């Protein structure tokens, strides 16, 4: 098995930093920048009164990253209000997903986090009026080729990203949680929602977690893999602490939605990488019901443990680069049947190549 990067140990047991020497700190800083987790480390350290153990020379890296996360949260709250106001006009209440939902739900995984964009879910039949209302309020679709546009509309679970003309924040509008062609697809109508204290709509706990699981374990790009797995670890810990029936409900719901295999992977790798306190019978039950055969499992272990702990390196390390490439292919394969995937990849390859050639000339 691969050695876990130091940052995994620190996210699990922050007080490990008490015994850190200079090379340890240098490694943690580097991994924190790579995984974009310095803001999360800051909030862990301050919550547990450990920040004084950070060397004075390095303190600013952590507090600056946290400062940036505060500004993201602030911008994101404005965006949430604006999106809700725009859609209220046509009587639609959007459901906030992913990072934004963690923050709105006051999940621990929302603290110190950065937000690249805002994700919402709107039922497919309300999509035309939602797009219309968002357009009137300044959200514009980026210029896409006809092929890409068609690809989104026909096969994907979201419409092409919208960007606000003045605030330049990206809004992803989902009408389903997984690509329509994906082998784990389930109807979005079966999702269960809840309202936050602030009156915003989000998915209920189990569905919010299963959505994160589906995304992470069907991903084709793992540059933020460690961040997302740490989100998951925090979500599992937090809800297991507050709800004694949490694990039973999670397993039942995974079964119900037909995403058991992905749930198995999530429990296995959060446990292996972050020592998430998953009860033995829960781990055993998910293994019995959903584990792939031993050969596939060994392959999955070797790939997932690499891509989830190490972002794609810019040079060197061939085994990690290969693992990322394998996951890229797998992600696409899971999303589309081969009869769609092969023409798609050929087409994208050709488009990339011809764009590259015309740039050269």
């Amino acid at each position, binding site marked *: 098995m691969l050695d876990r990067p130091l940052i995994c140990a620190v996210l699990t047991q922050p007080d490990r930093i008490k015994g850190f020497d200079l090379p340890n700190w240098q490694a943690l800083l*580097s991994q924190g*920048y*790579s995984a974009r987790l310095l803001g999360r480390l800051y909030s862990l350290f301050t919550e547990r009164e450990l920040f004084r153990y950070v060397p004075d*020379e390095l303190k600013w890296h952590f507090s600056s990253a946290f400062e*940036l996360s505060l500004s993201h949260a*602030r911008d994101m709250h404005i965006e949430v209000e604006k999106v809700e106001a725009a859609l209220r006009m046509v009587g639609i209440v959007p459901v906030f997903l992913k990072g934004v939902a963690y923050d709105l739900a006051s999940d621990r995984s929302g603290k110190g986090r950065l937000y690249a964009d805002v994700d919402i879910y709107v039922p497919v039949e309300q999509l035309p009026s939602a797009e219309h209302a968002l357009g009137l309020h300044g959200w514009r679709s980026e210029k896409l080729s006809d092929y890409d546009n068609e690809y989104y509309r026909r096969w994907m679970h979201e419409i092409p990203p919208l960007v606000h003309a003045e605030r330049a924040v990206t809004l992803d509008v989902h009408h389903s949680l997984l690509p329509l062609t994906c082998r784990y697809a389930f109807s979005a109508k079966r999702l269960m929602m809840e309202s936050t204290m602030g009156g915003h709509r989000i998915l209920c706990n189990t569905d919010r977690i299963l959505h994160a699981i589906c995304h992470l374990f069907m991903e084709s790009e793992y540059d933020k893999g460690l961040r997302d797995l740490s989100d998951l670890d925090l979500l599992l810990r937090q809800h297991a602490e507050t709800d004694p029936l949490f694990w039973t409900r999670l397993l039942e719901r995974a079964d119900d939605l037909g995403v058991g295999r992905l749930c198995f992977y999530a429990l296995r790798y959060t446990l292996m990488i972050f020592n998430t306190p998953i009860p033995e019978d829960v781990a055993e039950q998910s293994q019995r019901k959903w584990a792939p055969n031993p050969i596939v499992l060994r392959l999955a272990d070797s790939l997932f443990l690499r891509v989830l702990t190490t*972002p794609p390196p810019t040079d060197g390390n061939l085994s990690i680069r290969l693992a990322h490439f394998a996951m890229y292919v797998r992600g696409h394969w899971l999303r589309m049947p081969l009869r769609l995937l092969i023409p798609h990849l050929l087409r994208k390859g050709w488009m990339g190549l011809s764009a590259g050639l015309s740039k050269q000339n």
Partner: protein
Amino acid sequence: MYADADLLEDSYIDFTISLQRSSGLRRWFKRQVVFSFHDQTPFLPLPEDQSLPLMEWALNWCVSNHYHQALVVHAAVVEKYGKALILPGQPGAGKSTLCAALVTLGGFRLLSDELTLLDLQSGRILPNPRPISLKNKAIEIIRELVPDSRISRVVHDTQKGSVGLLKPPANSLRDWQEEALPGAVVFPRFNPAVKGGTLQEMNKGVAFMQIANQSFNYSVLAEKGFNAIALHLDQAKCFAFEYDGNLDAAVAAMDELLADVG
């Protein structure tokens, strides 16, 4: 360029960066160089010849994207008599040329030719001394003005035209931990039509808005950034400065200005 800088041993490193030849065919044909910061590559590869300017741009990027303990303003800043002289300016306003003349001819200490770091708590300026990036005509102007100045090999055809780096005076590097108190904020504009140049006091509200607009992380820091500018401007005077290209006269004017303020 970095001969006078301290070498660290057994000390923490803030930014672990690399400049490497890009891989693949480019290793053999029209060699390129790629900057990376951990696993990020924020810039497109550039011709290998441009490595030195790329490193300077990249180091500025490291600071302006990650350092939020200060408001980071796109402006040159120098110090004399303990007071900071901040020179914000659009590209082409001549801030780097003026800054180079001030530190070579005028005995000013260089804090930075590109990034002014306004401390959030004190409103003072934190130094970040590195080579001054001279562009196009400025390279020859400084070479003539200060014949013994150390300028790097000039790299042509970069995004910013021809670039030469001027080695900062040794005292700037030696005193890199010495903060500077608020003194003056001067908005320079090169205008050959105004003989002898003009220096006019400027409304602080207008200066405030320009500083906020020219800062990289004003939107990140929000209220804290607002307070830092306010704190600084409470103690500094603001001027609009048009100069005709006579750098000796400009240096003398700035010297007089800083000796007067505060």
